[in-house]
């Protein structure tokens, strides 16, 4: 009993201290919201087809206008041919539309309305203002390390990227 009371007390003190030291509730709400949006339901056809050459990127990382552009240009996809049979492409497009950033109310990822308009329909997650901001501590030379190769190689650093986990505690930047 005594130990339990002590434990409760310690937890209470830590909570009180962190409430003063950190903008806690906001920070937590934001990262929880982020995690749940990134973890939108998976879709087997999307994972197989769009996960063959790179991570099947979480649909919540780009707005619907971007996915529409990407799906319309698969024959010339970042210098490679990623063409799909029409029925398969339609299936994937529907999934992306349902879980795109804006479909999930993730406008916050795109900044103010004016910023969003200026970004148009980016083709790259790694080209968005959001991505650059989250990764602004990473030097250009780090992106080019052989074990990384490209910022689009999310899984090189985010160890749970395949299961759409991007928790900052599960990052290891390879040498």
């Amino acid at each position: 009993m005594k130990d339990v009371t002590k434990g409760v007390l310690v937890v209470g003190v830590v909570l009180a201290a962190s409430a003063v030291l950190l903008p806690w509730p906001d920070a937590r709400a934001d990262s929880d919201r982020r995690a749940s949006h990134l973890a939108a339901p998976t879709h087997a056809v999307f994972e197989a087809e769009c996960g063959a050459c790179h991570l099947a990127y979480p649909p919540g990382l780009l707005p619907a206008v971007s996915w529409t552009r990407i799906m319309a240009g698969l024959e010339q996809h970042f210098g490679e041919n990623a063409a799909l049979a029409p029925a398969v492409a339609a299936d994937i497009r529907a999934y992306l539309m349902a879980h795109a950033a804006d479909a999930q109310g993730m406008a916050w990822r795109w900044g103010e309305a004016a910023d969003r308009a200026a970004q148009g329909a980016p083709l790259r997650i790694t080209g968005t203002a959001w991505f650059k901001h989250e990764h602004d501590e990473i030097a250009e030379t780090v992106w080019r390390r052989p074990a990384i190769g490209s910022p689009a190689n999310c899984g090189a650093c985010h160890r749970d990227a395949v299961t759409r986990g991007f928790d900052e505690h599960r990052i290891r930047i390879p040498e």
Partner: protein
Amino acid sequence: MNKALVMASLSACALNAAAAETPLHLRDGYARAAGLAPAELSVAAGEALFRRGGDGERQCVSCHTEDPRRKGKTRAGKLIAPLAPSANAARFTDAAKAEKWFARNCADVLGRACSAREKANLIAWLMTIN
């Protein structure tokens, strides 16, 4: 060679095989589409296509490596399972998948489609590797 014909002979093969398709069925399906008997296929031509297909950064071996028993890597850093059936039992067990990747990779690397004969030769060569 006409694509519908290739797919038709490949799927006829699949029906014979009942369960999953095999590298042998895929090879023979392409050979039939090219009007060749399996004995007329050229392992050397298959190897040459793989090793010398493309130039500069665009080569079969730049993604699949020189050794089809090894894992390769895409431009975005994702690992590619080995192409040799002896090193990867899932290889050439799905005719539609093989057709899709031949179409993409031949267009990207060679700037044209591969013929049924080339596809059959490549599979024939990969099947000789243990």
